[in-house]
């Protein structure tokens, strides 16, 4: 699996593959052997190339994490590559003005959760996209009015197709 991790304004590519024990994780160019174990509520022990680190992982909305380690607390965001692409094309979702939100991967619209003209808050579901055999709720990345919806229930979409517009 390929993900993007954003921390202190920097983005890192993270590629996760299965390993005999745990995972191989490649951060940018650096490859690690990682064994991860949940040792308590919100706490995880990571063995990274044999070195142990214990981290607290507090999930916030939508791929945002507060990670605590011995050093202190850090905000870390995990994104899927196509989300990042969409964000870069259409501006960050916490911008103001009009934002068009695209499908980040091919799929099918399973359900519309709002109607055109409806006000939504950050994190509120707008529609449900089925992709890779998984249903993914597409949530509003900022508060606003869903001014246009470009898709209909049951409709297939391609990655990059516009889904809705928020203003």
């Amino acid at each position: 699996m390929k993900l993007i991790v954003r921390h202190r304004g920097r983005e890192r590519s993270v590629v996760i593959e299965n390993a005999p024990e745990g995972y191989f994780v490649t951060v940018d160019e650096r490859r690690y052997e990682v064994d991860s174990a949940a040792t308590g509520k919100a706490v995880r022990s990571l063995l990274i190339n044999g070195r142990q680190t214990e981290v607290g992982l507090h999930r916030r909305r939508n791929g945002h994490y507060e990670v605590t380690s011995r050093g202190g607390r850090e905000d870390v965001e995990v994104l899927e590559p196509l989300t990042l692409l969409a964000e870069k094309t259409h501006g960050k979702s916490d911008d103001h003005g009009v934002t068009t939100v695209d499908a980040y991967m091919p799929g099918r619209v399973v359900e519309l959760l709002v109607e055109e003209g409806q006000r939504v808050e950050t994190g509120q579901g707008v529609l449900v996209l089925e992709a890779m055999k998984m249903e993914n709720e597409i949530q509003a990345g900022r508060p606003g009015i869903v001014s246009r919806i470009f898709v209909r229930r049951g409709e297939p979409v391609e990655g990059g197709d516009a889904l809705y517009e928020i203003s």
Partner: protein
Amino acid sequence: MIDRLLIANRGEIAVRVLRAAKERGIETAVVFSEADRKGLPVILADEAYCIGPGPSAKSYLRGQAIADLAKTIGADAVHPGYGFLAESAKFADQCEQAGIRFVGPPVAALAAMGSKLESRKLMNAAGVPVVPGGDRPLVNLEEAIAAAAEIGYPVMLKASAGGGGKGLRLVRRPDELAAAFRATRSEAASSFGDDSVYAEKYIERPRHVEVQIIGDVHGKVVALGERECSIQRRHQKVVEEAPSPVVGSELRAEMCSAAVRAAQAVSYCSAGTVEFLLDSNGRYFFLEMNTRLQVEHPVTEMVTGLDLVKAQLDVAEGLPLGPEFDDVRPRGHAVEVRLYAEDPYRGFVPSPGTIEFLRLPAGPGVRNDCGIYEGIEVSIFYDPMLAKLVVWGRDREQALNRLARALDELRLEGVQTTIPLYRVLVRDSDFRAGRMDIEMLDRKLSAGELRVASQDDEDVLAIAAALDFMETRARTTAGAADQAGRRDRWRATGRRESMRSGL
């Protein structure tokens, strides 16, 4: 004999008193506020009684109600802990009136030491050095000018009724005096309802060194050595140790003897602390006397092997101090850090919330005095001190190494705490060398020192978050696969809900 003890406090100190009482075979009861039903004192006590809602004024500060409760349940003594009613002469009197023993000093000693000006007078009379100046209230600017000239600049203007670092103003030069005097008076009037002000010599960068004493009702008072409490933030202690890294045996003997004189001057009994400022020339000045058990009493216990709460109970029963008090031989070095639910890097803003995960350190030389456990909520109503971590070592270096180890073991998730600050402090070269004064911590923090270094490899953070993201998603997918072919409206909703909460 004390057979049933009511503990009129909460959190770690209520637990501390409970432990001593249980080890002495005393039946224990605690009071609790509605916010503290799940508190550790309730769980560990034999009996527990709700005394009102969360705010202290409606629960832990209701002296008469607590004295009445003690009578109702047949308790024969009340231990007030520290804070709340511990130094209230009125509460001690209410207990006495109800026929309940107050575990602490006599009412008169509480009253005498409760007034700054009166206690200064008593100390002067007893030959205990006090900070020069300030033996009278200053009623107008002329008196203030005369007093400051007499004392010599810089001087500190202080509200007579002040406390907790409020109502203080430093005056370095004569031309600053008039404005400072007016400001201090008006602050004193508005904050404490009493505009009397006095002037004292300002001691530059002093250390805070205090002496633990204990007295019995037969007139015997002994000093149990000193504690160094110079690591403070805005006049609130955060780290304490015993012995002081700068007090030699001669100075110790002198300060201990002064502390005993101070206690005897007010016919003190029970445990108490005489606080001094120590200047860079090794001169010490009486600051105030705390007429109660102190937060930092465990460091004295760890080096002396004494149990001060047990001793308080003995004294309250009228027993003479035992032979162990004649032959106090401190061993090694002890350090305490106070764990506050505060963010040290955002101005110590309190951080209430739920303790989601807690691992206390353990092993040799580690003592936890703790009022929390995993799953409990840290309330907004009370002092944000959650626990005290105390370590002992053969010498100061071993104690600090052990403290560093223990702080690394300690893990608390759910609220922000001062733990990260202590992890840096315990490795700070000034602290390690014993170079400190009561303003050092504030100075270092203002200068941006004692910051957590970005010692965490950023790749570790990326790996941790990415793996969690992937695994959370995998759980969701697995759930979907299970339900393949049985989709309905409910499941779609359920799935979405789990995604919402999960991601």
